[in-house]
């Protein structure tokens, strides 16, 4: 350091905040949890929002299913159908769930819930499966290969020539109208196509 500002962090401090996990397992705590333990915690602390089978209650996120829908008109992106790495499941649940009471789960409980989510998503089929820091790296997610790095520019939008300014087309005709959907908030009860 050049300015001498700040201070060295203690080991306990780094341990308290350094809770992130990477796909290569860096950051995984010691511990383990079974599908059945996970089912129990999930039904107690998660199912009221995400549904008993991860199907999502009301508009709360869907966590399971959707395999094979990514090319559909209405793809269902879940842990099983979309997420490339298992570490993300552990990391996210530990840091952010249950919604409203973050970082309240034990490490073992998070292993158990993660195991249960793998089971609900048919990534593991053995209902006696136990997930631990030992076997964590062996689990691969089915959609991992379908992610690729940003390929932009991917539209013909990088021009050296000036774009057309006059008589660029014969005419313009309206093809779609927002008023047909009528989902703009105006005090009435509306619902539209959500994005997330």
């Amino acid at each position, binding site marked *: 350091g050049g300015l001498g500002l700040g201070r060295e962090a203690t080991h306990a401090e780094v341990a308290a*905040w350094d809770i992130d996990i990477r796909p290569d397992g860096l950051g995984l705590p010691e511990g383990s949890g079974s599908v059945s333990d996970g089912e129990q915690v999930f039904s107690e602390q998660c199912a009221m929002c995400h549904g008993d089978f991860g199907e999502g209650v009301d508009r709360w996120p869907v966590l399971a299913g959707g395999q094979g829908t990514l090319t559909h008109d209405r793809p269902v992106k879940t842990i099983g159908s979309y997420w490339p790495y298992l570490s993300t499941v552990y990391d996210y649940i530990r840091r952010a769930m249950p919604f409203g009471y973050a970082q309240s789960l034990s490490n073992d409980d998070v292993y158990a819930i993660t195991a249960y989510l793998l089971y609900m998503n048919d990534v593991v089929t053995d209902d006696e499966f136990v997930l631990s820091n030992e076997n964590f790296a062996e689990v691969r997610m089915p959609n991992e290969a379908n992610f690729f790095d940003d390929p932009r520019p991917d*539209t013909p939008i990088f021009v050296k020539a000036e774009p057309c300014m006059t008589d660029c087309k014969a005419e313009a005709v309206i093809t779609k109208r927002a008023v047909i959907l009528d989902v703009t908030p105006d005090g009435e009860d509306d619902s539209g196509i959500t994005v997330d």
Partner: protein
Amino acid sequence: GGVALGSAALAAGAARADDPLITDLDAQPWTQFLGDPVDAMPYGMPSEHEAHVVRRTVSWLTADATSSINFTPLHELEGIITPNGLCFERHHGGAAHIAPGDWRLMVNGLVGRQSVFTLADIMRFPRVTRTHFLECAANSGMEWRGAQLNGCQYTHGMIHNVMYTGVPLRLVLEEAGLKGAAAWVLAEGADAAGMTRSIPLDKCLDDCLIATHMNGERLRPEQGYPARLVVPGWEGNMWVKWLRRIEVGDHPWHHREETSKYTDLLADGTARRFTWEMDVKSVITSPSPQAPITHGRGPTVISGVAWSGRGRVAEVHVTTDGGVNWTKARIEGPSLDKSMHRFNHEFDWDGAPLLLQSRAIDTAGYVQPTKDALRAVRGVNSIYHNNAIQTWAVDSDGRAENVEIS
């Protein structure tokens, strides 16, 4: 058409009645009686007549208002600065309230000294002032399949443009000392979402800031008070609020916000990841569905905003006939790197229906694409990075609607 008679039409007709707002002093009490004293508003607020100029949310978008979004009322704004009270909000666990004395920043991982900084420590680093737009990658995301929302507040309002003061992230990283293998940084928030994003080290050393001030004053709570990350030109989700930790590593983390979210699903089932830059984009803010033309034919001002995550906006073109003919608009106010630009174009409206569009070109040479050009390569399922040209259809009464055209 129900257009009210313009004042010109009236003047041309019979002798005009005197306006009591001029001739009758009783109708102008503010001219006779004292107004508010200087101790009435130690921190001022907008006029009661501007109560409609607020952030608005769309209730059906999310399950819960604590992990949700509201929108900047772009159609009511002018210039390039978004007032702090109107900067759109997106949080994943509600807006945290942290007393500045309780805030800590940890830098750990591949550094020489794993460090803790207080806010007072951060304020001792050299600070810089920069103006940048923050656009949510999902801005205009509801419009991929077609025209859906009637108002640029909803179609384009997940953006704000703010003059930040803060400390270059580079200086804080250098203070901890970078190890040789360092290549990525994880930024983590102190909120209940524990928001995390992986950012390439090069970007962190280039132009990222740990911001403490916005538009002259301290950050607002909902914008990450007391400190947030500023990642110029890159998607808003990366601008971690209530920043608590910076970890330096050799690989990206692939956390939830860069896998489940903020990856862009294409029609063939594959998905783009690490799509950070916000492409060149623009929208006409007036006239627009929430800001119709109310004055009838004659002199009319088209105003709008344009921005690019790849530099400055070089040109904005405007069409009133749905893209048959385009005119170069005037860029008004400062043209700054990775900042919103204001454009204006005046024309004499003959009262016939209009198809309004704007098209921006950035200093990197990119041209804002049409919706169809974008869909041809991205399909309609990618949610994020919709920077397509927006069309407003204005009818002969001046009402504007969100439409798509051939």
